[in-house]
């Protein structure tokens, strides 16, 4: 007999295991719809390799491993992929995540597969490949990819291989039934593991409350060199670190892995899955799941296809929805409540607990901590739960870390014994999350700081470069000036140039400062733009003619007005008219007769030229300072012309009609303004 060791703390809750061990494991059959979450393990979610509408066979890989710490997912029956997308996950958050849904065709047709019965001929990497490709992850609860766990570093020789058959949590009997019915398969799986790890000793640890399973296993293990060890029942003996202490007396140091002290622990179910994968070539597509609790009529274990909805199992075991107060995945100590019966069974689902109100009542209201210390006595990790509770309330993350919150296995012993009904584990879970978030924030803030500083540096560098350039330019200008001063011959030309440049700058500035105050200039520009295509540099004789005609007309009108008003500038006006008449004669002579018709035909060009002429005339008038009366008459005339033009345009359906309209309205506005001005002037 091997000596076993004790672990600190622990509790003895009611076991409630007999209810579900009365009948043999029953096959749950094939549900209509199966849902496969892409993340049923610790590590990166698997990557889907099928598409909606694809036909899949039983055992076909539907999602491949995505990285080293990841495992693939396989279809557990044949059928058609009907959806790849969000579905409620078996997760305490009740959130949705990526899943592949398969509609079963009922044929349950296997994909071609072949095992390696003489696996001893294969080396470790080949076997690990088989295990990884079979999608095997720890089936005890955490779901850590087995291939990773079975591949310790070469400097970590494995002394002890422990197979975990403890199943210490109340209600759960999946491993118990597995041992009773499939001891051979378990032992074959253990032999495969032994071949992979080559440990000096191989131990299967079983709690002494499973007498029947113990007897069967002992019997089956005779002559295999595999040791069956039983030890007193106590929760949580089945925790990995706790079991190592019980079997070897060694403790896994803080922050280290069991492999660091030469131990590897695997679950019984995992061993069976490894056997099926290696010897028969079957991937992990089914597991034993206990359905128990007082709200189901048939409490028993099911051989369940992974991906089966929980509702399928509940129907099979005749659950009474009216008395079930909640649905728990896992056991009463570490399980979590489910909100939805469509949640699928995954690789880690060892139990569905459906209690009634009497069995698992709502927790009593939390009361104040009385510092009784019972939690500290119950803690299997030798922590100080009351201190951790205190610091959790105060959110003192640093203190929590100093008190080794990270070593808490969240077994729930402290909450179980607390006379004040404090949900201690929930405090620890929240605080663990807070520490994780805080650490991530620190990383992010460091990253941000580095980025910000890099940016500051860059901006500084750019500013410096700019300043340097500016100085270089200033220097060059100075030098140029100096060299110009030394060569007197070129002085005049330089000054001339400078003067021209200065003048140009002044002009531009003037233009810029009052771009809208000079409507004449704007009109000229507009008109010139309109006249695109027409020669701009030299006015055509026709244009000149039209211009002169316009000017002449205006001058005559002005003359008339002057006569009416008795102006003293009559002489000047008449002189102007004579001059214009002469010019007109000259222009007419210059224009060939044929072009006269052209002038009238090309209205667009003419109107543009007209506008220029008018604008220039107006400017000329402006320079000569028109009296307000004259200005008004002019405007009236222009308005009349514009209206005529608009009318013609409307008749001809001209494209520029809008422009005409606009010009009419502007002119009207101008006219009003001018009249206003006049009245004002008269008053004053």
């Amino acid at each position, binding site marked *: 007999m091997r000596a076993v060791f004790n672990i600190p703390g622990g509790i003895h809750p009611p076991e409630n295991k007999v209810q579900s061990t009365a009948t043999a494991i029953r096959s749950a059959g094939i549900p209509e719809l199966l849902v496969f979450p892409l993340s049923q393990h610790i590590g990166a979610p698997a990557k889907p390799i099928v598409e909606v509408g694809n036909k899949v066979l039983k055992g076909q890989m539907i999602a491949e491993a995505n990285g080293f710490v990841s495992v693939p997912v396989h279809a557990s029956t044949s059928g058609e992929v009907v959806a790849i997308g969000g579905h409620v996950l078996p997760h305490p958050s009740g959130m949705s995540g990526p899943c592949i849904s398969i509609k079963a065709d009922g044929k349950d047709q296997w994909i071609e597969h072949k095992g390696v019965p003489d696996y001893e001929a294969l080396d470790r990497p080949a076997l690990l490949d088989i295990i990884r490709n079979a999608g095997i992850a720890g089936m005890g609860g955490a779901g850590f990819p087995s291939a990773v766990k079975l591949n310790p570093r070469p400097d970590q020789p494995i002394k002890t291989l422990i197979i975990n058959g403890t199943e210490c949590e109340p209600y759960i009997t999946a491993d118990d039934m597995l041992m009773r019915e499939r001891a051979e398969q378990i032992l074959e799986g253990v032999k495969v593991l032994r071949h992979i790890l080559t440990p000096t000793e191989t131990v299967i640890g079983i709690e002494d409350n499973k007498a029947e399973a113990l007897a069967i296993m002992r019997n089956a293990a005779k002559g295999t060199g595999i040791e069956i060890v039983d030890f007193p029942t106590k929760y949580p003996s089945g925790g990995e670190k706790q079991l190592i202490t019980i079997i070897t007396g060694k403790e896994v140091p803080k922050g280290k892995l069991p492999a660091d002290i030469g131990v590897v622990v695997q679950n019984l179910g995992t061993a069976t899955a490894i056997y099926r994968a290696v010897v028969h070539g079957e991937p992990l597509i089914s597991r034993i799941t206990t359905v128990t609790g007082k709200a189901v009529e048939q409490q028993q274990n099911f051989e369940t296809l992974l991906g089966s909805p929980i509702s399928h199992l509940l129907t099979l075991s005749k659950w009474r929805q009216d008395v079930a107060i909640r649905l728990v995945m896992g056991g009463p100590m570490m399980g979590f409540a489910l909100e939805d019966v469509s949640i699928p069974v995954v690789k880690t689902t060892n139990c569905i607990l459906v209690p009634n109100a009497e069995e698992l009542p709502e927790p009593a209201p939390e009361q104040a901590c009385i510092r009784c210390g019972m939690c500290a006595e119950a803690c299997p990790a030798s922590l100080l739960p009351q201190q951790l509770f205190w610091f959790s309330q105060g959110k003192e993350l640093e203190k929590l870390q100093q008190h080794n919150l990270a070593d808490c296995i969240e077994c729930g012993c402290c909450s179980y014994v607390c006379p004040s009904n404090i949900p201690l584990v929930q405090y620890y879970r929240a605080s663990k999350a807070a520490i994780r978030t805080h650490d991530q924030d620190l990383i992010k803030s460091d990253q941000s700081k580095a980025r910000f500083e890099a*940016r500051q540096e860059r901006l500084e560098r750019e500013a410096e470069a700019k300043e340097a350039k500016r100085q270089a330019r200033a220097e060059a200008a100075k030098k140029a000036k100096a060299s110009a001063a030394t060569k007197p011959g070129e002085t005049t030309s330089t000054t001339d140039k400078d003067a021209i440049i200065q003048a140009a700058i002044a002009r531009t500035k003037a233009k810029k400062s009052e771009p809208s105050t000079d409507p004449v200039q704007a009109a000229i520009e507009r008109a010139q733009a309109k006249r695109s295509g027409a020669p701009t540099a030299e006015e055509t004789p026709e244009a000149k003619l039209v211009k002169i005609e316009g000017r002449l007309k205006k001058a005559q009108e002005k003359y008339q007005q002057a006569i009416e008003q008795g102006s003293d500038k009559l002489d000047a006006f008449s002189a102007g008219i004579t001059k214009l008449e002469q010019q007109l004669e000259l222009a007419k002579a210059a224009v060939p007769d044929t072009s006269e018709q052209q002038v009238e035909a090309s209205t667009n060009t003419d109107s543009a030229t007209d506008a220029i002429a008018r604008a220039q005339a107006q400017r000329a008038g402006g320079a000569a300072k028109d009296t307000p009366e004259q200005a008004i008459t002019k405007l009236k005339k222009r308005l009349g012309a514009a209206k005529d033009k608009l009318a013609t345009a409307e008749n001809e359906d001209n494209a520029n009609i809008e422009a005409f309209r606009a010009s009419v309205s502007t002119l009207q506005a101008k006219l009003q303004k001018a009249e206003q001005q006049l009245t004002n002037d008269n008053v004053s």
Partner: protein
Amino acid sequence: MLEFISQQPLLAALIVLVGLGLVFGAVLGFASVKFATEGDPITDQINALLPQTQCGQCGHPGCRPYAEAITNGEAINRCPPGGESTIAELANLLDVEILPLDAEEGAGEKPKSVAYIREDECIGCTKCIQACPMDAILGAAKHMHTVIVDECTGCDLCVEPCPVDCIDMIALPTTLQTWAWELPSDKSHIIATDVSHGEAA
């Protein structure tokens, strides 16, 4: 020598003490030059606690200037992105009282968010790029811009300069990776006999 001491004890003691003072003064002076600390260690420590969003909500142009201001006596409760936890850490570091967050109305603790540019509406003016203290916005003049979500600290500084208001601050959704258990909310701590009275003591 002995004779001098015995004849002039007062003078001898004075000379010895002054001598000692000079020697130690020289040693200390040398040490202060030789082992001088670069920069301001307290400012660095404060800066390490600040969230480095560079958002300016404290009224300083960035986290380091605020750290310097705290070193010079400014209140520790001006940082909304850091929130209560940062105030607690600063109070712990500086051994001062924890103060409630002092922020403008509506500028209290917000859920973590990142900027999002509605890319159809972006006109490519680059104003947000210049405003971003993290260089977390990518784009060129007259081309659509976009936010590098991983680098965005949610400082809000890009929202205001946008002439077409196409930048939204979107709260980060809870994912399976970021989901966490919450602290138990029922803090009533009633004693069992109070249940029937319906009121907490």
